C-alpha cells in the first residue's frame, strides 16, 4: 500500500540560496529547510534533547577524529552541521544523524523545487 503524503509549498527557492537555511511551517509542523551546495534538505525544528528550536541554530562544519581521519583532528562536514542554540547538540543535516548520540537520527523530509517553489512532503 503506497503511503500518501501531503505536499506543502513553503516558500520560493530563490529566497534560499546555497549556505542558507530557514524555518517554515508545513501543516502542523515546524521544519528547517536547508540549502547545502544547491541541494535542499528538511529537518524537524525540534531538538530531541530538551525540545529546543534546533533549526534556529547556525550551520557550520565540525570537528571529527577517528579511524576515518587516521586519528587526526579534522574540520569536516563544512556547512552540513546544525547546532541547537539551547545546548549545543549537533546534527548532520543531510542524514539527520545526531553527532553526539549514535542512537538518535532525526526524521528527514523529501524536499524539492516545483515551479520555483520549495515543496516538502510530510
Amino acid at each position, binding site marked *: 500500500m503506497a503511503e500518501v503524503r501531503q505536499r506543502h509549498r513553503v516558500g520560493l527557492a530563490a529566497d534560499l540560496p546555497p549556505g542558507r537555511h530557514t524555518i517554515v511551517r508545513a501543516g502542523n509542523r515546524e521544519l528547517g529547510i536547508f540549502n547545502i551546495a544547491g541541494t535542499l534538505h528538511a529537518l524537524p525544528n525540534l531538538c530531541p534533547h*530538551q*525540545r*529546543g528550536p534546533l533549526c*534556529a*541554530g*547556525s*550551520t*557550520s*562544519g*565540525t*570537528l571529527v577524529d577517528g579511524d576515518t581521519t587516521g586519528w587526526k583532528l579534522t*574540520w569536516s562536514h563544512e556547512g552540513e*552541521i546544525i*547546532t*541547537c*542554540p*539551547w*545546548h*549545543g547538540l549537533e546534527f548532520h543535516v543531510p542524514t539527520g544523524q545526531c553527532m553526539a548520540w549514535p542512537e538518535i537520527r532525526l526524521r528527514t523530509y523529501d524536499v524539492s523545487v516545483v515551479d520555483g517553489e520549495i515543496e516538502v512532503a510530510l
Partner: protein
Amino acid sequence: MAIAAEKGGRETLATTFVLDGDVHLNEPPGELAEYAEAPWDVGLREIAKASGLYLALPGMAPRAEYRVPWPGGQNRSQVVTNAADMRRELDELHVDVAVLYPDNLLMLPMVRDPRFALALARAYNAWLCERWLSAEPTLRGALVACPQRPEESAEDIRRHAGHPGVCCIYLPACGLKPLYGHRQYEPIWKAATETGLPVAIHSVEAVFPAFPFQLECFETSLAQHALAHPLSMIANLVSLLETGVPMRWPEIRWGFMEAGVGWVPWIANRLDKEYLERRREVPHLKERPSHYIRQFFYGTQPIEEPLARGDIVKVFELFDGERTAVFASDWPHHDFDHPQHVFGLPFSPDARRAILGGNGARFYGIEIPAKYRAAA
C-alpha cells in the same frame, strides 16, 4: 504540600509553581561603576571600555584559559542585562519566581586585590537591589559575599538584608582559598544567622592554582567543566563538615548550586565510611556526615540525563533529594535546564511539585503565590 491544579484539568508546567533557584544576570562594569566607591568607580569605567571575553573581563573576572573559537556552535545570547528582559525570558520558560546570581562575579574569589574585590561586591549588592529587585518583585536576589574581606562583607550583607527582594547570601567558590570551612569566614556565618538569610555556594569553571581548580592538567573544557563545579561543591561541603561550621551555626540553611546532584550520594557514603574510623578528629559531628548532608539543599542544574530516564529518580532517592533538591535552570547560560524537562521526569507528583517549587520556597524563605496553594 498540595498545589491546586486548574479546575478539573490535569497538572501541567503552567499549573505548577516553578521557583527557579539559580538564574544569572549580567553585571556590566559601567553600571557597577555608578555604585562603586572611589577610586574603584574610575577603574570600573576603564574596564567598561575593554572588550573582555565572555565572563573574562579584565580584572573583574579573570579566567586563565582561552578556547579556540571554531565556527558554528551555540548562537544564542547568554547574557541578560535588565530586569524586564529577564522577566520576559523567564515567562517563556514558565518560571514564576527566580533567584538572581551574577555572571562576572562568579569569579570574585580570583580577584587578587582584596580592596577591589570588596568594592565590586558592595557595588554589585547595591546595584542588584536598586536596578533588579526593586524593579521586579518576582526576581529575588542573592547578596554576594566577599571572601577576601569577610568582616566588611558581613556589614554590607546586613545593610541590604532588609530589602524585600533579598533572599540569600551567595558564597562564590571559584578559585576560593581557603575553603569555606576556614575560621576567617565566621563574620559571614554570624551575619547569615542574624539576618535569617540562607547561604548558597556557587562555583564556575576556571583554571586557577587553588584546590580544586588546578585543572591545567586537563586539555579540554569538557574535562575542566565536568569537574570544576562538583569538585568545588564537594571540597566546600567537606570543609564545612570537617570544621563543624553547620554545627556551630545551626540556624543557617545551606545550598549547593550548579553542580548537578550525582555527587551528593557519593560524598555522603564516602564520608560516612571515613567517619566510622576517624570520628575522634571530628567530634563536633554527633551523627554520620550523611545526616547533615541530607539537611542541605541542592540546586538541580545541570541535572544528569542518564540514558534510562528513571535512573535520575533513583539518584534523588539516594540523598533524599525529593525533599531537598531545588529546581534551577541556570538561564541564560550554555547548559541551562528547561523546567519542562524536570517536570517530565518520572517523579511522583508530590516530589515533582516539591522539586520545582516547594523545596526552593523553603530554602529561600519565599512564599508560594496564593493561586498555587490548594484551597483548604
